[in-house]
């Protein structure tokens, strides 16, 4: 009985990773993927069932007993998504309404189930707990609020995966759906945090982060080495063919956004994936122009406040 319990839980689902399996491995053997550290070092081939997983990541504890309801629900959604991918997306066919909902629900879960999201959420709670403990100590109060926050922190990530699911899915349903198809020899890669939000309008500043409601935001998720999903508010719709250059540019973004690892179906990597900026002369000119402006502004600022004493 204990063997059937899903204690090893994938933060990037197996059904999703199977699409990125090394095609050179014979079908009678366990499917494997090539996994690389963010900087492209430590490349290794790993079995899908053992990789990007953690023990009891989504297991709840109810009255001291382990409850796998979240993992089971995730597995059910993954099964439905896998069927949609196999029957429709892979064959470049339009999705009906139900399939569209399944795809959006899958994307919504992929946005929140990863280790990066868990770590960010837990870090936020840790800061809150620290602040609460400090206040309780300063005012000689019993540790009521900090204990409550610690309890929240325990299950925050697990419950969050489904807590926001209806709202995010509804929002994603309203966005335009595009499947970017790799036409040439270059193929898409993925990562341990495959679903990304990117807003080109915000790339020149560090204060605001991307959000689903923003006009120029795009949600990308590589679905297989041949297809990448792109949801946006613009008129980018349909199955769209992409050349090698665009695919490699997307891969560069995927490597840039990955948390610890990126995943490929082959052991080959491209140098361009590890560049910070795209190899576009106009974009590079903009970067240089911006750097120079910031540098001049900084010098001006320093000169203006040259008599202000440093603390």
């Amino acid at each position, binding site marked *: 009985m204990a063997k059937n319990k899903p204690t090893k839980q994938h933060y990037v689902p197996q059904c999703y990773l199977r699409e990125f399996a090394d095609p050179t491995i014979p079908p009678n053997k366990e499917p494997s993927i090539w996994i690389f550290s963010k900087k492209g070092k430590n490349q290794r081939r790993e079995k899908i069932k053992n990789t990007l997983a953690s023990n009891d990541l989504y297991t709840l504890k109810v009255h001291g007993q382990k409850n796998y309801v979240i993992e089971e629900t995730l597995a059910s959604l993954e099964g439905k998504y896998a069927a949609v991918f196999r029957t429709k997306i892979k064959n470049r066919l339009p*999705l009906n309404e139900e399939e569209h909902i399944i795809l959006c629900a899958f994307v919504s879960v992929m946005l929140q189930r990863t280790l990066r999201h868990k770590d960010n959420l837990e870090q936020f709670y840790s800061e809150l707990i620290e602040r609460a403990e400090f206040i309780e100590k300063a005012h000689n109060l019993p540790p009521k609020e900090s204990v409550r926050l610690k309890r929240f922190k325990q299950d925050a990530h697990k419950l969050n995966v489904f807590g926001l699911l209806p709202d995010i899915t509804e929002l994603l349903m309203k966005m335009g759906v595009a*499947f970017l198809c790799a036409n040439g020899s270059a193929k898409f890669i993925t990562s341990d945090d495959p679903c990304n939000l990117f807003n080109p309008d915000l790339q020149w500043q560090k204060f605001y982060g991307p959000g689903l409601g923003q006009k120029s935001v795009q949600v990308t998720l590589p679905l297989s080495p041949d297809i990448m999903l792109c949801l946006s508010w613009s008129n*980018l719709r*349909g199955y769209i063919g992409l050349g090698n250059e665009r695919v490699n540019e997307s891969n560069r973004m995927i490597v840039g956004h990955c948390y610890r690892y990126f995943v490929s179906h082959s052991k080959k990597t491209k140098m361009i994936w590890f560049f910070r900026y795209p190899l576009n002369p106009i974009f590079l000119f903009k970067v240089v122009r911006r750097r120079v402006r910031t540098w001049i502004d900084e010098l001006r600022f320093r000169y203006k406040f040259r008599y202000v004493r440093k603390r």
Partner: protein
Amino acid sequence: MSEKDDLQQALMLLQAGKRKEAAAQLLNLESRVKDKLLRLQTIGLALSVLDPIEDNKKLLLFSEEAIKTSQRFGDKDWQANFMSRKADLLMNKISLLRYHQKNLKLASGWIEFSTEADKQKYITLTSEIEKCEKEVSDLLTRALAFAEESGNQEALGNVFMSKASVESSRYMQYKMECMVGGFRTALWANFRLMRYPFFENLLIFPGAKGRMLEKLLDESTKASLKAAMIFEKLNDVTAGYTYYNLANHLKTAYRFRAATAFLKKAKSIADKHNELPLQNNIEVLKGAITVKNKDIPDYINGEVGRDL
């Protein structure tokens, strides 16, 4: 105040350049006027005053009603006039439908629809466009036949004016259709020089596409010139407006020299008839030609033009 006075007042407001006030007055009048002839006159004026884009649905209903009423009166001039106006208004509707249709297949490497909802929407839009296109051609043919039959030169001039507007819309729509992304579209979008006729025909739309565009532009110009000749013979100020419209269309097509020449003709007619609104419009268009279309507002991002 009687309904006739209200109509007179609306006309005066329009002549004074108070378009919005005139439109409000006409809409108010339209809701209560019962007399068929007066209603026809109200609709006739409303077709020139209301916004052809914002009030498109309303105007289409008005023109449909006017066609039926004038048919009952047996007045072929009016019928031809309203038919051609409806054809013109339908072209605005088609432009909007084409814009929505185009957005569903915008990307250059487009392969297939991503959702069945998009596919269904595309099919619906396509059939609606085809239906409207057929109606436009039908309306124009019948309007021309009625105007020629009645022998009324003013009605014939109005029909040609609408025909010119329809062909001009077709030119713009076909150009939009030809922009299927890729290197040529990028060149056209990023370099103004590429929008001039020589480069456009040589690099952007070579071959059949370019010839088709030239044909549509020629047809629009011919219809405008026919209308202008008729109105000039009648010593009607509408000839000035026809030349002005033609200049405006040629300016949009980056034919600035020809646009300037027709604008000069429009100005001489406007001065001869002392037509102040036309004189003002000519000055604005002259400015737009001088800056070579660099002042076109970004409508997609919410900017509005001088006319709205």
